[in-house]
């Protein structure tokens, strides 16, 4: 994609903001006891303590109905918290909304457009709503944003003729109308085909490389795993875990799988070396590696020495999903 051309102002802005303005480690998003109880009495968000480090690509995970969107809406000043509060870029929300929000681009619960306006006019409209947006540069910024999400060719079409994927792109373009310090993207790849998803992930990486903090909510684990440096998981309104992705998956011990025509003997040797929960299925034996896992080369040599004929030998990659199942004790696709 030819996005690099538009990138420099963004890099300059976000980079400088971080370098000179802030004590190291100040969070892009920080909440304290953030709670929302809706009028029906339903507790949507319960005492959330969330910290999103500056410069991170932060994955905000949880099944549908777990309170992600309510949290995002509170952070952006659309919903008043019942108690607790949050800071965005170091300033209290919603009090500092006018000062903070121009530095924040957002895609909330999917794009929303004026169907009777062209894609371009939709962006012009959203830009005009920002009192800090310079009308003299509006045309150029709108064009750059359209170019960046690959919609330049369809800019003159009425938005009602857009496909879901195109609407999603236009919503992203609206979030990129200004250089931003923080992007809040709620399910940004919804409705996109695999190619579109790849492009969006590329765009997120590129923005992050420029220094923009990206807060990405999703219910797709592998999506988070592919782009995020940090993650948090919500379930039923509560924050279950948060931290660096590498740390989260490090907490889970890996599994070793051996393919062999001598499964019984292999299982015996593996057990001797401390593997637990051994299972064998035909010519495959697998087991959970112990803490401080032994050198895999030593294990392999031990198998061979014991006369086990090894056809395949490998450690299964620990996915974020494994980590979350381990941490939450439940599958990920449960709703609410």
């Amino acid at each position: 994609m030819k996005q690099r051309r538009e990138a420099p102002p963004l890099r300059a802005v976000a980079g400088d903001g971080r370098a000179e303005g802030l004590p190291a480690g100040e969070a892009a998003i920080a909440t304290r006891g953030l709670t929302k109880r809706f009028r029906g009495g339903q507790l949507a968000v319960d005492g959330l303590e969330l910290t999103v480090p500056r410069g991170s690509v932060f994955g905000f995970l949880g099944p549908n109905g777990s309170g992600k969107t309510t949290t995002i809406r509170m952070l952006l000043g659309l919903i008043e918290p019942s108690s607790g509060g949050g800071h965005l870029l170091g300033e209290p929300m919603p009090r500092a909304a006018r000062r903070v929000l121009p530095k924040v681009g957002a895609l909330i619960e999917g794009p929303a457009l004026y169907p009777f306006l062209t894609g371009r006019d939709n962006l012009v409209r959203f830009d005009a709503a920002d009192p800090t947006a310079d009308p003299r540069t509006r045309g150029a910024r709108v064009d750059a944003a359209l170019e960046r999400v690959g919609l330049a060719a369809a800019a003159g079409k009425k938005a009602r003729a857009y496909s879901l994927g195109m609407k999603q792109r236009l919503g992203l373009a609206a979030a990129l109308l200004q250089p931003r310090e923080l992007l809040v993207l709620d399910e940004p790849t919804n409705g996109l085909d695999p190619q579109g998803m790849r492009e969006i992930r590329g765009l997120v990486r590129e923005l992050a490389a420029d220094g923009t903090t990206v807060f990405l909510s999703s219910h797709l684990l592998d999506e988070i795993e592919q782009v995020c440096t940090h993650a948090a998981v919500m379930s039923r309104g509560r924050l279950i875990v948060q931290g660096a992705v590498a740390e989260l998956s490090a907490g889970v011990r890996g599994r070793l799988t051996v393919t062999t025509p001598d499964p019984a003997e292999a299982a015996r040797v593996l057990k001797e070396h401390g593997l637990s929960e051994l299972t064998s299925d035909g010519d495959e034996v697998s087991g959970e590696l112990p803490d401080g896992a032994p050198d895999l080369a030593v294990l392999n040599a031990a198998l061979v020495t014991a006369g086990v004929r090894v056809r395949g030998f490998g450690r299964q990659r620990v996915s974020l999903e494994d980590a979350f199942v381990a941490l939450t004790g439940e599958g990920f696709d449960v709703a609410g």
Partner: protein
Amino acid sequence: MSLAEPLVRNPSPLWSLGLLRSELGTVFRRWRTLVLLGVLATVPVLVGIAVKAQTHGDQGGHGPAFIAEVTNNGLFLVFTALAVTLPFFLPMAIGVIAGDAIAGEASAGTLRYLLVAPAGRTRLLLAKYASVMVFCLVATLVVAASALLVGAVLFPLGDVTLISGVTVPFSDGLLRAAAIAGVVAVSLIGIAALGLFISTLTDSGIAAMATTVGVLITVQIMDGVPQLHAVQPLLFSHYWLSFADLLRAPVMWDGLAKDLGLQALYTAVFGSAAWARFTTRDITA
């Protein structure tokens, strides 16, 4: 503040007007708006043709105000058309635009994007009300202009005989027509404020429009029931037709002042209510 420095673009207060301009562009580029204005423009045409066709028949002396004068002077079609459209057509169009103002954005979901832009709730509400008021003026002018055109084509134009019997030159009559259009437009800002308030109560544009139009119909019925005369002076439509007093010499200001005062009252009450509601409400749509 060094944090904000790279992003401070020395915003000019004038940039805020961009929202109003955008608002107006959005309202007047909708097909729905153009259809409403089109319907309003046809009313004078129908009235004009009907009067023309009836000229040779027996005029029973009934019908809307000034209709008997139209055959003598096409300018009177402006007054007739405004008198015909003011009770329902005009306020109904206002009700649609005002009712949709916030609720329509909410149901389309665009409201959340305007607010995180950040448009600012008070600022957005003001821009909405201002654009509805502009629509009041445009809608009234469309009726007046269409009526003037039709009147000029179908009937003679000339000196104007006022209600009080005095005859004034055509230019004076034209000036009074313009003043009347202005008064009619201002007479509509009460229902505009009411519609805007209703619009802040719901996330459904259709519901807000229907409610506003429903309130209009109810109020108009109440204004016609003699037993309710005690509350009638408080109904926003009660003094609407006092615009005719501008066709007297000297002008009778009493009814006009009451009408404008009532509109100011409705604007203050429902404008504040809309503000109180909109600035504290959770945006979940």
